[in-house]
């Protein structure tokens, strides 16, 4: 299959029905992790055409020609994203962290708060119709067993405020 991975052209051998997670990990981006394997925990989150997806459920064939970003690419030239998590000590074991960082990037860069694709008030958007696009609502798809979320929330707020 053919797609763009972290800004580079990627041509890889992949079955259209295999999870995108396996494909990006085989391509060397092992930041996204396999946790629940059913779209609940968010450890596998990657950005496909501007939207966060659970790469464990997202079929590789659906990402044909897409623009895919993983935590490696998102943090490569964004020291503010790295610092926000590091300064807040927003991690412990780190297994959820790539997914948290990826969703945090989307929280700050989301196309339209009010109703654009993935916007908090779009149909099925994180906040629901008229919902409050607060960080907890936007980050609820990323589980963390270690930190109790307080530091992650602070990190995401700091990073978003800088945008």
């Amino acid at each position, binding site marked *: 299959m053919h797609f763009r991975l972290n800004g580079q052209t990627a041509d890889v051998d992949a079955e259209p029905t*295999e999870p995108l997670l396996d494909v990006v990990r085989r391509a060397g*981006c*092992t*930041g*996204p*992790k*396999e*946790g*629940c*394997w*059913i779209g*609940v*925990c968010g*450890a596998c989150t990657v950005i496909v055409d501007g939207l966060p997806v659970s790469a464990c459920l997202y079929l590789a064939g659906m990402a044909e020609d897409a623009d895919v970003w*993983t*935590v*490696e690419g998102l*943090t*490569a030239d964004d020291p503010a*994203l*790295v610092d926000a*998590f*590091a*300064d*807040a*000590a927003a*991690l*412990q*074991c*780190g*297994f*959820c*962290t*790539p997914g948290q*960082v990826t969703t945090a990037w989307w929280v700050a860069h989301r196309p339209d708060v009010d109703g654009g694709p993935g916007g908090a008030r779009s149909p099925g958007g994180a906040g629901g119709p008229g919902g409050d696009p607060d*960080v*907890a*609502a936007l*980050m*609820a*798809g*990323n*589980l*963390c*067993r*270690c*930190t*109790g*979320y*307080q*530091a*992650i*929330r602070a990190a995401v707020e700091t990073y978003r405020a800088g945008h």
Partner: protein
Amino acid sequence: MSTVVHPSDVRVDAVRKIVGAEEYAGDVSLEGMVHACIVRSSERHARIEAVDTSAALTIDGVLRVVTAGDLDCALYGRIVRDIPVLAVDKVRYLGEPVAAVVATTRRLAELGAAAVVVEYGPLPAVVTADAALEPDAPLVHEAPWEYARAVVSPDDPPNLQSRAARGTRQEAEAALAGAAHVVDETYVTPAGHQGYLEPQCCVARWNAEAGSLELWIPNKTPYRLVEQLAACLGRPAASIELHPVAIGGDFGGKGSPMAGPLCAELSRLVGRPVRLALRYAEDLAATNPRHPTSIRVRMGCDTGGRLVGLVVDAQVDGGAYAGYKPMPEVSLRGIGHAASSYRVDAAYVESRIAYTNTVPKGHARAPGSPQITFAVESALDELALRSGLSPWEIRRRNVLRTGETGHEGVRYAEHRAAEVLERAERSIRPATAPAGTRHGLGIALYDRPTGLGYTSLRLTARADGDLDVGVAVPDTGTGSHTVVREVLAGALALDPACLHVRHLPTGALPGDQGVGGSRVTATLSSAALLAAERWQARGGEDSIVVELRGEAEEPITSYCAQVAQVAVDPTTGELTLLDLLTVVDVGTVVHPASHQSQVDGGATMGIGFALYEDLELDDGQVWASNLGEFKLPSVRDLPSLQTEVLEGGKGVGPANVKSIGELVNPPVAAAIANAVFAATGVRLRRVPLRAEDLWEALYPATAAAPGRPAVPAAAAAGPAPGGSSEQP
């Protein structure tokens, strides 16, 4: 020696974890590596009559199907060695490994495993501790006393794994007989998974020529795992090396050998490196979850509310094997600490752990403590009600004061229970319950001792003038490697950026006891101070190794009080946690951000135990078989979390630290249950606390009938907060 604290320092592992560069076992890829998948039992208890591997072997890419007969190893276990690497002759729980398929890819290994056909001859099963301990119960093991290091004998009840008791039953019973008020209730807690996000995983490479075995496995007790593997595989410990990998969450679940012995055997059999990674569903169904308990508490006080007697009988479901429990007496220590915060004239505490045909249980954050604290701290509120005291007052009258000794007979350096309670009471910020709901507030108290363990550490000067710090123990996420850096930087008056902390492979250092018992910060900080001393006094060497075998001068314990505020919708029983206040008793906090993260994470895990997490093991099968069914709290499920840190405690060792990792999760459930009672007059004695149970208690007459009932007077009026009315 004083400790300089650098509160703003970034964790040593922060950046590599944030950018996705940290290496976990599942990220390790070796030349020629192949993949394995386990064939698991579909029966609770059955003879294995035949295993047909022929269909699996026709799949292109399947290299080998392995059953017990192919293995060349003994049973394994942390203390009791009773776990077969693959089931021999019979299966004892649903999900038990029966065979393994090795293939060139994980997908092919999974296809191969699905194609293996096992024929079973079903046997009668026992799936609860109560049933298992009946005199004529079916036997899970024919002769459990014959296992290496077993703690039972042929005279014990048939399915006993272990029994632990403290105190004298007659004395405690006599004290209860003379009490003015007595509570006699039974509290029930479910099996629960630790919820670490990284499924169990292992990569093994067996080198036949060198006779060596290397493993990459997320295990928090690497030196002990080497011993366990050596015993199981019949090889010298010196031929086994564990490489450091990050651990994607532990909470007690990453202390057992788990995927290690099987993965090692598979690598030997196929002559290639093998990765054995579990899917999360396998992890939930068949690793080493928290023990379910049924705990009968009888507690009595005199007319002044003074505790005179306590009898605790805990029945614990240990599952099919005892080998995942690491304590020499194979018990859950937390249960023995029942009511350890209080003065009780006569106490007797007994726990019996049973073999059952269910997934074998292991350690989970503060083993036994969330269960016993839910029971005892709920019972104490029930006793307060009977003796006309407030929940605060009965605790104030009974908490241990410095100089006193509880029923465990340990004389701790200090007891800060009264101060912790006082700070909790003063720090409450009343939360507002939504219109139409009832507000309730509940308190619970807990204490946990801190000790010192064994570890070793290496300091090496680098060419650039910085110091390499080699540690023997993995950082399970708690920030322990950062603690080493902070303490060394303080003691050596160095910029923390000049210290490079690395976890070394086994064999590089003399040894380590492993992570557990909330002793890591105390042990590592003491070891770091010792290393700093030796470093400053060294001669010409540019590398030193220190070993710390810790003995605390005085026993130390720490207290935690929690206050929960809830809102209950009296029409539906829906329960909302509005606020959770945690007060912790600390010595010196070495790295405040990591400390706070332990408090927040512990409180959140306690909330999960109280409100959501249940493997639903009722008939011996884990029904909550994925992370959608076994619900961990998300950021949206949390109330406002407040923390109060009571400084100035006396801690362990020269670094003066107390425990935190397992201090905060145990009291949460009782605090919430007590708040629910204050709001509704309903006493829930089973976790998770569910709206359904609350609704059924509120509407006993209509609970069986469908339809939406009117709000009964008792629920609409409710008792005053603090719980001053009897149950409806």
